[in-house]
């Protein structure tokens, strides 16, 4: 394959990464923005979404689409419910103290990971996609008779991957609409702007926190259900999404949703292209150093305006 089609392919793969990453990172960003706490267990909520998707698809039987759709509904609900329970039993009792929340969510990370290992086991298991037609993509060339289109070998994507991108965009639009157009979103924004004042106006801040924590975890689970037919469900799969979400949230400006989406697209797309030129380990080293340095010198993020 020549370089042109190769980069197109890397971009398409990158777009799938970006779509899933955007969902996961928006969940993390929402929690940070409204509640001012960092949820280290976010990656484990992602992993739980994938594992639940496997269980649902496995026990549902019938057509793969049936199990997948059920997982798409059940996994975010179950994971969101678990997050709400964790919020009410743990985070609420430590009064959302930022440092103690980090320690508690590290504990939660270990608990979720080990319980998954003990029940689901160490295997990586696939979930069948609901539909998966291969779509060959054309590439152009200036030949003897001017512009020509042809189908290079290997340049293809699947209908499922395109659907993932579409679904992620739709969900993100939904989150945006919820934040800007609904009463719940208004309450969330009020709480984010000034917790004390929101309390004074009779907003049930603690209930808002529980809902936000649930939605954040649910978004991670949803992202995992979308990616699990492409990757596989594994009990350690939460580490990379957590790290990447962190990077995205920090680059995008802590707590800023549009910044997060833009950063997810940049990171997702460049991830594929960078790993063409560097070894994956070196790419990760550069990415983590970049995040550290951005936080040191531009704590408001590359796109943020407000100090974190």
């Amino acid at each position, binding site marked *: 394959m020549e370089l042109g089609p190769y980069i197109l392919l890397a971009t398409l793969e990158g777009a799938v990464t970006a779509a899933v990453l955007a969902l996961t990172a928006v969940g993390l960003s929402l929690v940070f923005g409204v509640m001012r706490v960092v949820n280290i267990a976010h990656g484990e909520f992602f992993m739980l979404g994938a594992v639940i998707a496997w269980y649902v698809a496995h026990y549902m039987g019938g057509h793969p689409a049936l199990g997948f759709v059920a997982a798409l509904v059940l996994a975010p609900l179950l994971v969101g419910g678990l997050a709400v329970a964790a919020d009410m039993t743990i985070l609420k009792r430590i009064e959302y103290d930022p440092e103690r929340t980090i320690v508690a969510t590290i504990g939660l990370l270990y608990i979720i990971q080990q319980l998954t290992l003990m029940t689901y086991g160490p295997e990586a298991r696939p979930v069948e996609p609901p539909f998966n037609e291969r779509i060959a993509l054309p590439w152009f060339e200036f030949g003897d008779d001017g512009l020509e289109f042809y189908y290079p070998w290997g340049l293809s994507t699947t209908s499922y991957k395109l659907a993932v991108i579409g679904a992620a965009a739709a969900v993100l639009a939904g989150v945006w609409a919820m934040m800007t157009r609904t009463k719940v979103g208004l309450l969330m924004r009020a709480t984010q702007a000034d917790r004390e004042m929101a309390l004074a106006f009779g907003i049930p801040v603690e209930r808002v926190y529980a809902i936000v924590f649930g939605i954040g975890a649910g978004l991670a689970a949803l992202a995992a259900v979308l990616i699990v037919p492409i990757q596989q469900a594994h009990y350690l799969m939460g580490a990379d999404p957590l790290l990447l979400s962190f990077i995205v949230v920090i680059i995008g400006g802590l707590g800023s949703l549009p910044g997060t989406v833009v950063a997810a697209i940049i990171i997702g797309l460049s991830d594929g292209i960078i790993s063409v030129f560097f070894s994956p380990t*070196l790419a990760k080293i550069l990415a983590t150093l970049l995040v*550290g340095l951005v*936080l*040191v010198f531009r704590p408001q993020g590359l796109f943020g305006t407000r100090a974190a």
Partner: protein
Amino acid sequence: MSVSARILVLHLGLLALLFVLQFVLPPYHHGNIARIMVLASYAIGYNILFGYTGLLSLGHALFFAAGMYGMGLTIQHAGFAPAPAILVGILAGAAVSAALALLALRTIGVAFMIVTLMFAQAGYLTVLYFGEYTRGDEGFVIQAAQRIVWGIDLSDATNRYFAAWALFAVSLIICLQVVRAPFGRTLVAIRENEERVRMLGYDTFAHKLSAMVLSGTIAAAAGAFYGLLFGYAGASFASVQYSILPLLWVLLGGAGTVLGPFVGTVFMFYLIDLSSGITTAHMLIAGVALVALTLFAPQGLVGEIKRRGAKWLP
């Protein structure tokens, strides 16, 4: 007995007790205690920054690993003798912690945690990247023949116990002296209210910088000793888990107490040791311990004792 005499008796008493235990412990616990004393030194270093200065670092594995690899790589590839290699490890830890401090101390709170986490992660990945020298996850063994210091064979259990005890004693006494000196008092004041300390004319940045370098250097010394005494250096010691463990030990024992790190390390070590007979998922216990601690005993074991009566504990 005056307070300072009481403090001296308690801490020197612990050191004397550990020294004597050497002769009565069965071999299995003998090895465990040696390991615990090295890990407790790591926790003591961590506690200086977290417990006394109030800076929660999630990147101390970087310092521990700097000590371990500073020692291990010079023995393995430069043919150093153990004593100068240990010194290289300690100096590496001091240099790395000073460099990270200059960057990370520009941030506060959650940003500080994430910056230390990210740089430690970059350090861990760097160890993996130079797998040719570090042998990555697999790690490398430091042969018994390379572990003889001034004719003392450190692979021997008794000598190993004494070396671990010496490291622990030095760390404990440094910590005790530092926190009772004006410098340590200023660190506590910074933890409680940095603005006010700055207003009183103290250079808080210089104090935090010194605290982080001292903390990182003790962590590196523990890393270097750990590698040398137990004859192994591997990438897992640079991973996030080894940044979280000292936090766990310190929280369990009591942040901002001199004895807390030791008590926490003993408690956690034996909790995992005893429970591994029942379940293999020891991280589950660590997780439950972390959550329970933040909920029910944010002061830790020694912290609770201090709160309930023994206010004189340093």
